[in-house]
């Protein structure tokens, strides 16, 4: 066993497609580590995943990984139409990298996953799959959307089942990390949220292991799957959405109620990461994809 030389161990990053988000993430999603995106439904998790699968195909000089991606989805149906839409705008803005008849969607391999055991099965088959892909465009990004869906219904609330669930977390995470190390992959996992009831201080806060208060849609939430899964990921990002009142309109002089103009405010937070400070930035979701907003 020889130690690795740190000076040659620079971690590659996969760009998110938006320079503002890339700045927040110091380059993008890192390789050889598991990044988790936590958000409630409708916040943009799948959008980011699709966008990353496309941008991973960019050459390394432009922040991509020059690679294809493996997309494992658990929540049906897979958003093919949205992917196609994103693909069109991606192609038009990056036309010089791709030949004319090329379809970036060809380099996204989609697989549906039903249960946690199915996922383990798939991962044992992933090794030779990625090995073979080295001949064409190598797979360098694995997306699992979402990991929470696999675990939220199959397990009873008994200690034995919970223990089995926890040990499955570690098994899956350890396999993913081994894959990530072996092929230098970036792994992106999405997770859902659960509501946090009760005070955040004291034992309740400790139980969830959540030191940071996460808010979305006016509720206090914490990531699903608990403390055990939180130990398995390397970085965690949180997407929140809120309705914010930006100004009043139609102010009537006789004191009648006026209309408030509400705006959907979406923010991306870095909850924890070994290489990032705690920071956040606003973003918006448009037809072309998910982009940061500079204020």
């Amino acid at each position, binding site marked *: *066993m020889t*130690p690795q030389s*740190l000076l040659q161990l620079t971690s590659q990053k996969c760009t998110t497609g938006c320079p503002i988000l890339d700045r927040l993430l110091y380059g993008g999603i890192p390789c050889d580590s598991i990044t988790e995106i936590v958000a409630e439904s409708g916040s943009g998790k799948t959008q980011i995943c699709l966008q990353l699968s496309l941008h991973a195909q960019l050459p390394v000089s432009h922040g991509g990984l020059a690679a294809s991606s493996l997309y494992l989805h658990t929540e049906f149906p897979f958003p093919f139409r949205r992917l196609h839409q994103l693909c069109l705008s991606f192609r038009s803005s990056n036309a010089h990298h791709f030949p004319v008849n090329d379809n970036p969607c060809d380099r996204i391999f989609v697989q549906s996953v039903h249960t946690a055991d199915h996922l383990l099965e798939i991962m044992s088959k992933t090794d030779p799959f990625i090995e073979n892909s080295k001949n064409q465009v190598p797979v360098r990004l694995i997306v699992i959307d979402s990991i929470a869906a696999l675990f939220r219904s199959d397990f009873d609330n008994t200690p034995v089942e919970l223990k089995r669930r926890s040990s499955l977390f570690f098994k899956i995470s350890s396999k993913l990390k081994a894959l990530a190390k072996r092929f230098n992959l970036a792994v992106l996992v999405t997770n859902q949220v659960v509501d946090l009831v009760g005070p955040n201080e004291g034992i309740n806060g400790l*139980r969830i292991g959540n030191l940071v208060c996460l808010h979305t849609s006016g509720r206090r939430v914490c990531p699903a799957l608990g*403390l055990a899964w939180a130990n398995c990921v390397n970085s*965690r990002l949180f997407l929140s959405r809120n309705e914010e009142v930006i100004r009043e309109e139609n102010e009537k002089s006789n004191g009648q109620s006026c209309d408030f103009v509400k705006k959907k405010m979406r923010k991306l937070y870095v909850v924890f990461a*070994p290489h990032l400070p705690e920071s956040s930035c606003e973003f918006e979701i448009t037809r072309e994809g998910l982009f940061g907003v500079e204020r």
Partner: protein
Amino acid sequence: MEIWRLPISASQRGKLISAGYTSLSSLSSISSSDLARELNVSESEAMNILKVASHSRGSETSNASCSIVEGAQSAWDMLHDEESLMHITTSSADLDNILGGGIHCKEVTEIGGVPGIGKTQLGIQIAVNVQIPNDFGGLGGKAIYIDTEGSFMVERAFQIAEACIEDMSEYNRFLRKDFQECKIKMQPQDILENIFYFRICSYTEQIALINYLDKFLSEHKDVKVIVVDSVTFHFRQDFDDMALRTRVLSGMALKLMNLAKRFSLAVVLLNQVTTKHTEASFQLALALV
């Protein structure tokens, strides 16, 4: 070396042992008049004994460490040793205070916490701080970083190394205004080079590496700290045989303690936490304790 090997008369030997002096190191800090009083012998005889003892000790300095392992060491000597050992600063004065000066060498320190609290950051900081040269109050040693989770980010280590060097230059500027020669020659790249980084992906690799460290440390004597980032991560998967897991873990812990004592280095273990269901409440507990 034991007293019974000293070339002195049997009666003197008997008096020494009955008075409680069983090893040479216990005779090192006593004066001849005190010894004469204790043994009930003349002062010249006591001086003779001490001379013989120091002579034998002088000729056996190469076996000195052997004697400390074989025989008992007096508590006074142990206190001396402990006080003379340097600590590794954690770059936080409060934390150093709690730890009694910093991370102690010859000891295993376990640090646990929830994800995202800063365990890896502390681990990297310690791996950088151990390299602070002796002139600045550090150990000037190298570090071994064993990464089981893949959370070590080189760019972050580079940032921390840069900050450490900046810190040292500040210290230089304030306190050593006259000594121009004490310029910092260290570069962040040098600091990174002195961290031996191992990445392991399974518990078998972890055990194999800890066994290999013996050989590695005898070749690299300037390593002063071993940081294991998440010592329990790979053991939390389904280990069907719990007894085996306990055996393996305790074996590993013993080996690390052995390494710490033998090579006089510090071992820092970073651990995760789990929730413990006790009666009706939940508590955070270190994993696999």
